[in-house]
Structures are given as structure tokens and as C-alpha cells.
């Protein structure tokens, strides 16, 4: 043992900072979640609204849960250490004894509080932030003050943990003083004696979390099973209308259906070339491992994820405002969503190709574009075709949905007749949609089978 610890590189310190913070973060999240659930369960009104929760109550709950979370992670070996695969070890490399754990907990409070106070004071003295004290205690609303306290607290704690980077070993004072540390126990868990599940805190927290989710979820979703039976009499007319569709609007209905199918077709075919080109920029194995290459890759993937997470119906709302009501808005909505969805699927396919042929073609002296065309392209064509057909299938179904908000096609017709409560006309439209979607489904499945 040398008396002076070796200075670690920044990357190693960062790894330690993460290792210290991750177990606590998990448990704090779990504790906050359960505590807020309990608060809701105790204080909601008959409509399921969180009416009885005052700001004071909320603040105390959050604070207490926070402390409990920290306690759970470092004293009880809670969910956090399990999820981040670490254990709190003492100076001898064995699981830390209870006294040291409590010391760590107490010292954490002291150091974190001191750090936040010192940081706030330093900023104030350096006049980097101005804290108008009269406004602070006088005019600030309770809500605003709560937000500020929350921000200062969480930012302060985050900064406190980040300050571990400044110590030569990447360890915070409360860790050094209590001589405890979270260490990765990859593979060591199995060696430890396994307690029955009801004696492991991790199970208690898991059970609590899940129970709370369903308890609260049941109230929030306003689930009333009785309505299913008592409400049945209202569906009667609807059901009988469904059996007697009004064929008078067959011509309009068929035309709207044609519009829908073409809308989906246009969106799919225009999306494919765009998605193909973009997908290569979103494939890790194609982009060069340089700063620029990685940036383009990350931006591309983020674009796919964000664009895809916005549903076509939301895009339709946007495009109706942008280009006006009608099929064009619907097509644009499907197009944008398809580019993102196909781009993601395509680029994952590009990433999963065999790397050998690419290496071999590069070795012949081929340029990057030729390498893609000769070594990558042949490998990805079949999955690309399959995904495209699948997407075309989805787009036909989605085309009826974008119609609901003015994106053209049969969805518009459906909303129109539903609004006038003309259920027999609605019935014809629903049957029509069912038939077409069913046919599309079968056809594309058949074609996919042939190709793959």
C-alpha cells in the first residue's frame, strides 16, 4: 500500500462518479414514485383528481422520500445497487458493516448540504447570481418558490456528485471518510448467500412499486367495470345499424376509399428513397468513426426517434394547418412518419449486415460509395423490401386515421356521418375499411413470404 493514492485520469474518475451516483439515483426514483403514489391514494377526491394535495404536503413528501431513497440505497442494499450491479463495500473489500453504512448516510447529508450552501454563497458573493431577498420572501408565489427550491436542490445534488471529478481518486469526501464505496460486483452476486425473497429489501421495494402503480392507475384511468354491463343497452341501435349498412352512399364511400389507398401508396413510395439515403447516415458501421461521422449518426438517429414518436395523426394536424385541408396534408403526414419509421428499420438492417464482404471490397481499393453498392446493398435489399411492404400496410390503416382530422380519404367521411349520428352510413364505411385493410394484410403477407 502506498500512502499517497494515485491520481486517476478523467475517464476513470467519471466512471467512479457514475458508480457512486447510479445506485442512489435508482432508489431515490423508486422512493419518490411510491411516496407520490401514497400521497395520491390518501388525498384524491371522488373524481380521482389530486385535489387535497397542497404544495406543503407535496414538498414534505418529496423530501422525506428522497431521504428514504438514499437510506435504502446505502443502508439496506436496495433496488439501486441491484440494478446498477454494485454493492457497498467497506475498507476490507467485504460488504460494509451497518455502522459504516450509517456513517456514510450521515456524512452524505453533511457534505451535500455544505456543498450546496457553499456553492450558493460563492455564487452570491461573486455576484454571478442576484438573489433579491425581499422578492424571494415576499412576492414569490408558493408554486414558484417550490420550483426554485426543487431546482436548486436537485441541481446542487447533481453538482455535488459531479464534484467527485475534482478529487484525485474520483471519490467524494463522505465516501473517503466512511471508508465505503459502491463497487461493481459483476459475477460476484452468485457467490453471496441468498436470503429468502421476503428478507431482501429489493423485493419489498419492487412489490411496493408495482402495487402502487396498479392502485393509482386504477383510479386515474377511472375504471368502472359496472358500466360495461349497464351501458350495454345504448349499444343496441349501433349494433343493429352495423348489420344494415346504408348502401346509398356506396359511390362516395368507394371513391373515398380509393383516395385513401392512393394516399398511402404515394406516401410510401416517396418515403422509401428518402429513407434509404438517410438510413446509411444513421448506420454506425457505415459512418466513419470521426467526430463528424459520429455527430451525423447521432443527429440522424435522434431525428428518426423524435419524428417517429410523433404519431401520424399529430403530423396530420400540423400539415392541415400548413398546406390546408385535404388528401395532400394526409399524405405529407404519412410521408414524414414513414421516412422516420423506415429510416430507423433500414439503418438497423444496415448495421446488422455481415462486415466481412464490406472489408473485402474496401480492400480492393473501392471508394466508399462503390463499397456500399457492391458489399452493403445486396445484403439489405430483401429486408428493405419486406419492411417497405409492411409499412405500406400500416400506411393504409393510418390513412383512414389521418382522415379523421382533415387529412382526406375515408376517415373524413367517417367523422362526417358519425357527427350526424347516421349510424347506417357509418356502418358501410366501417365495413369498407375492414374489407380493404383485410385484403391489404393478406396480399402484403403473401408477397413478403415470397421475398424472404
Amino acid at each position, binding site marked *: 500500500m502506498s500512502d499517497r493514492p494515485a491520481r486517476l485520469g478523467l475517464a476513470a474518475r467519471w466512471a467512479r462518479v457514475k458508480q457512486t451516483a447510479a445506485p442512489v439515483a435508482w432508489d431515490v426514483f423508486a422512493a419518490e414514485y411510491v411516496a407520490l403514489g401514497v400521497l395520491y391514494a390518501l388525498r384524491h377526491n371522488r373524481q380521482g383528481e389530486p385535489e387535497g394535495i397542497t404544495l406543503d404536503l407535496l414538498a414534505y413528501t418529496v423530501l422525506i422520500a428522497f431521504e428514504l431513497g438514499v437510506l435504502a440505497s446505502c443502508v439496506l442494499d436496495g433496488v439501486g445497487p441491484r440494478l446498477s450491479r454494485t454493492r457497498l463495500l467497506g475498507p476490507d473489500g467485504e460488504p460494509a458493516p451497518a455502522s459504516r453504512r450509517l456513517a456514510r448516510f450521515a456524512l452524505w447529508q453533511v457534505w451535500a448540504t455544505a456543498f450546496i450552501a457553499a456553492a450558493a454563497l460563492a455564487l452570491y458573493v461573486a455576484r454571478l447570481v442576484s438573489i433579491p431577498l425581499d422578492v424571494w420572501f415576499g412576492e414569490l408565489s408558493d408554486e414558484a418558490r417550490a420550483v426554485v427550491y426543487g431546482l436548486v436542490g436537485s441541481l446542487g445534488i447533481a453538482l455535488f456528485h459531479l464534484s467527485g471529478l475534482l478529487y484525485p481518486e474520483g471519490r467524494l469526501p463522505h465516501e473517503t471518510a466512511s471508508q465505503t464505496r459502491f463497487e461493481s460486483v459483476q459475477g460476484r452476486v452468485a457467490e453471496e448467500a441468498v436470503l429468502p425473497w421476503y428478507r431482501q429489501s429489493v423485493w419489498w421495494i419492487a412489490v411496493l412499486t408495482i402495487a402502487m402503480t396498479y392502485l393509482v392507475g386504477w383510479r386515474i384511468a377511472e375504471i368502472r367495470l359496472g358500466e360495461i354491463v349497464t351501458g350495454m343497452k345504448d349499444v343496441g341501435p349501433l349494433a343493429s345499424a352495423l348489420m344494415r349498412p346504408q348502401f346509398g352512399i356506396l359511390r362516395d364511400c368507394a371513391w373515398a376509399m380509393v383516395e385513401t389507398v392512393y394516399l398511402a401508396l404515394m406516401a410510401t413510395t416517396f418515403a422509401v428513397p428518402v429513407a434509404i439515403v438517410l438510413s446509411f447516415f444513421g448506420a454506425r458501421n457505415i459512418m466513419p468513426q470521426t467526430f463528424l461521422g459520429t455527430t451525423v449518426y447521432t443527429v440522424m438517429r435522434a431525428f428518426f426517434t423524435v419524428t417517429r414518436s410523433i404519431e401520424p395523426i399529430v403530423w396530420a394536424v400540423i400539415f392541415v394547418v400548413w398546406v390546408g385541408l385535404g388528401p395532400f396534408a394526409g399524405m405529407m403526414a404519412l410521408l414524414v412518419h414513414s421516412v422516420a419509421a423506415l429510416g430507423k428499420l433500414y439503418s438497423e438492417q444496415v448495421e446488422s449486415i*455481415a462486415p*466481412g*464482404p464490406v*472489408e*473485402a*471490397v*474496401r*480492400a*480492393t*481499393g*473501392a*471508394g466508399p*460509395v*462503390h*463499397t456500399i*453498392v*457492391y*458489399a452493403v446493398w*445486396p*445484403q439489405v*435489399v*430483401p429486408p428493405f423490401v419486406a419492411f417497405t411492404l409492411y409499412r405500406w400496410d400500416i400506411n393504409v390503416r393510418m390513412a383512414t386515421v389521418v382522415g379523421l382530422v382533415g387529412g382526406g380519404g375515408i376517415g373524413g367521411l367517417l367523422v362526417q356521418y358519425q357527427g350526424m349520428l347516421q349510424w347506417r352510413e357509418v356502418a358501410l364505411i366501417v365495413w369498407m375499411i375492414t374489407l380493404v385493410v383485410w385484403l391489404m394484410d393478406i396480399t402484403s403477407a403473401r408477397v413478403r413470404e415470397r421475398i424472404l
Partner: protein
Amino acid sequence: MLSIANLTKVYDDGTRALRDVSIDVPEGEFVILIGLSGSGKSTLLRCINRLIDPTDGRILFDGRDVCAAKGRELRVIRRQMGMIFQQFNLVSRSTVLRNVLAGRLGYESGLRSLAGLWPRTTVQRAYACLDRVGIGDKADNRAAALSGGQQQRVAIARALMQEPRLFLADEPVASLDPATSDTVMHHLGELNRSEGLTVICSLHFLSLARKYGTRVIALRDGKLQFDGKPDEIDEARFKQIYGEEAEEVEVR
């Protein structure tokens, strides 16, 4: 012709694959590269044509600095070095002919080859290369439909399209049966003798090394362990290269 000086490669995860390796390879040699798996053979071969960028050291090919080459210059260097691999690395869904034509991409890098419109002379050359390795009749098959030995011969034909001066072979027979291995090695030996092609080939079987090699280079933990004639490898040397516990297995 090829001069490697103080070549070092450290991977991003800290693995030191090559440590200060220096080798000179004159024209016309058949160099066999031996060593345990993970001793740096593949890394060395891939540094020579820059599929992997070395961390330190210098590689001169015909007096040109390989390590400093970029873009077009690097591609011109690469096209003079044919390479074949343990897993053949053919595009299995493409035809044999298209795979072989890909060997010409270092020369014909325009839009025509991108669209697959190859000049008649190039296509004829591709057939000739396939004939040379004895599978001229397989040109229209999918590469995946061929046996392992046939696939490796397609790979040789692809490399021949480059009109290479140096042949890099990364364990070319490790996934083949002994008889097919000998056929493939025979083709390499033939090219070496009749055209004076320089070959650097990594192998696991010393019997093949003795049969075809004019020189053996051994790596251990990324360091040069032995450099000499194939018949100089006796029991003691063998243990030096492969470790004390190793016994030589004789195939045939």
C-alpha cells in the same frame, strides 16, 4: 518491396495487438505468418493495407508511405494488394461474376461500374480469372451456392482482378478441410512461383508452412518471435512460439 518498421497497434480498449514489429519482405517471397490466435497476425495483415490504422510505426510499399496515404492515393495502394480471408467474405447473395468484378473497383471507380455496366474486356478478364482457379463454369451461380473451397477460389479470383503485386491471406484455409486446404494453398503457391507474386499468408498448420513457405515469421503477444526458414522450426522453437504446453499436430 514491403518494409515494415516499428509497427505498433493499440486498440481503443487498450489491447496491444502489435508491439514494435519490423519486417522487410523482398519481392517474390512466400511468407508464412504463424502464432497463437490473438497474437496479432490478422492485425498485422490489416495494417499493411490499412483496413486498420496502425498506432505507430511506418509501412513502406514500393517506397510509398502506406500509413500517410489518404483517399485516392490509399485506394491505389490497396488495389495492388489482393486480400483473401478465413470466411472468404464474398457477398453471398450476389453472383460469382459480380463478386469477382468487385475486385476491379479500385481501377474503375466511375458511374458505369456503380451501375454494374462493366466494359467487355473487364468481364472477359473476370472469366479468365475464374478459369485460372478452375471454376469458370460457376460464374452465374450465387456465391452462397458454392462450397467452401470454391468460395475461397472465387475470393482468389476477385483478388486476381486487382492485378496485385502483393497477396495478403488471413488464415485462408482455417475453415476448409485438409484436401481443399491444399488446393487453395496450391493456387497461392502457383501464383507465387509463376508470376513472382509476393505472398504473406497466416496459417495454423506447420506442415503447410513447410510445404509452401519460403520464410516463416512468428508473432507472440504482438511481438516478433521468430523470423527464418521453415525448416529451422524445431521442437524448441515451436514451444517458444506456441507456449510450453503445445504439441504439434500433424495433418497428414
